[in-house]
């Protein structure tokens, strides 16, 4: 088990390999479809994203006694950000993204070129992951709606797996290829 702490460092990220289990600590920023669209359109982010990890997540947040509380916060499907993520990695020097389901070749190439990783969180595990959120420190671009806003969170031991590393390896590509081969064989023998 590897522990990483914000601000995330390129050298440390480059050491990670597919299959590694990592516990993330410190700041995380959420950002999903609408945020990626804005960044793609060239709109400047409300805070610097440098050395951050962006969490593909639209949390359930309630305001209780004037304070935000995250009630549920699992990952959303990342592949929708495939057209934009490489550009966010290039322009904003993020050190990785957290999501589920994996991403494609463009993102994999960008991870290699700019020094980032794809971290897979457990889809649907909104309570286990919300437990690791210690505070909601800020919210930006709230006009996008609560699930689409950028939530600045502080987390403790947020559990993820490296499924795409900065050396061109992707677990998603491997599993897809292998299961495709098995399927071909199963269908031809029937």
């Amino acid at each position, binding site marked *: 088990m590897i522990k990483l702490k914000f601000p995330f460092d390129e050298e440390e990220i480059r050491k990670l390999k597919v299959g590694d289990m990592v516990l993330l600590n410190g700041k995380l920023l959420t950002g999903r479809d609408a945020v990626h669209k804005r960044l793609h359109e060239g709109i400047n982010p409300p805070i610097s994203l440098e050395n951050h990890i962006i969490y593909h997540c639209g949390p359930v947040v309630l305001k209780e006694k004037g304070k935000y509380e995250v009630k*549920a916060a*699992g990952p959303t499907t990342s592949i929708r950000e495939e057209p934009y993520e490489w550009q966010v990695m290039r322009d904003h020097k993020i050190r990785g993204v957290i999501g*589920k389901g994996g991403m494609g070749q463009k993102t994999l190439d960008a991870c290699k070129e700019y020094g980032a990783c794809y971290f897979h969180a457990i889809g*649907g595990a909104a309570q286990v992951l*919300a437990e690791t959120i210690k505070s909601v420190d800020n919210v930006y671009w709230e006009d996008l*709606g*609560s699930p689409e806003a950028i939530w600045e969170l502080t987390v403790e031991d947020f559990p993820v*797996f490296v499924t795409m590393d900065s050396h061109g390896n992707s677990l998603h590509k*491997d599993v897809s290829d292998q299961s*495709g081969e098995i399927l071909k064989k199963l269908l031809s023998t029937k």
Partner: protein
Amino acid sequence: MAKKKKATKKKVAKKKVAKKKVAKKKVAKKKVAKKKVAKKKTGSDQRMHDSLLELIRVTSTVIPDDVQKVILEALKREEKNTNAEYAMNIIKKNIELAKTKSQPMCQDTGTILIYVNHPRGFDQSSFNKILKKAVVKATKLGYLRQNSVDTLTGKNETMNIGAGHPSVHFHEWGKGQVEIKCMLKGGGCENVGAQYDLPNTNLEAGRDLDGVRKVILDAVHKAQGKGCGPGILGITIGGDRGSGFIESKEQLLRKLDDKNSNAELAKLEKDIVETSNKLGIGPMGFGGKTTLLGCKIGVLNRLPASYFVTISYMCWAYRRQGVSLKKDNTIQKWVY
């Protein structure tokens, strides 16, 4: 003389008072009667509201017993100290936490699908109004995420009410009772659903059950881990494009341990689960032994020109629950 006048006046006054009293009593009685009727209606509406709110809360926060059972079996099947086993353990822990904290097991509380079986004479429009109130309340309490977006403007409608939301399906039945089922289907798994029309040249899938099998397995392979597997499939063979998807979701209302009354389909359901689990996609697409937890297949008539196979994929966080209501709209029993 003066005394007499006074006395007469008193009598008159007394009479007036008496009349007034009678009148007041009558009015009061009428008011009470009106209030009682209103109270009866509000009471029954209030109880329907409370039952719906509780149905939504339980659906969002507690996994049904039949689903929990297959998830625990899948956890046991995975090899020790693998990413797949770790993923299944987190899923198990998440199920427990959501229940004890009464908070959504997944932050994507999905499309709110409501299925109502009701007797003749049931007031559907009044039900819809009460349901909307319950959905707003459930959203304010955090059982539901602000999950309904105006498609064209991108504006979040914040209370989960809007065109097509919630999605309600009424069905009149012969029983005197009202039964309401709720399914919360997240976007990740909805996005990996698929519809094929047979024959399919690329997959060499013809218009028979072997062709049906091929396209289903293709959909499982394409979904990989994106739909939050291990998943459950609801499938329709036949119908038109619209009815195929509606029926495929209704297949997901079946209990996981039931058996298809059509022997051929029962065999196909079992085969799809077993074959998918040989593909090695595993929980979250990490690789592993469980890719599917279940498969339910229904059939509708088709036109000579069409042969659709429609697949709805449900994530492991299979949120569906149901209640039978008593005459007074309180919950009599839970369906799952």
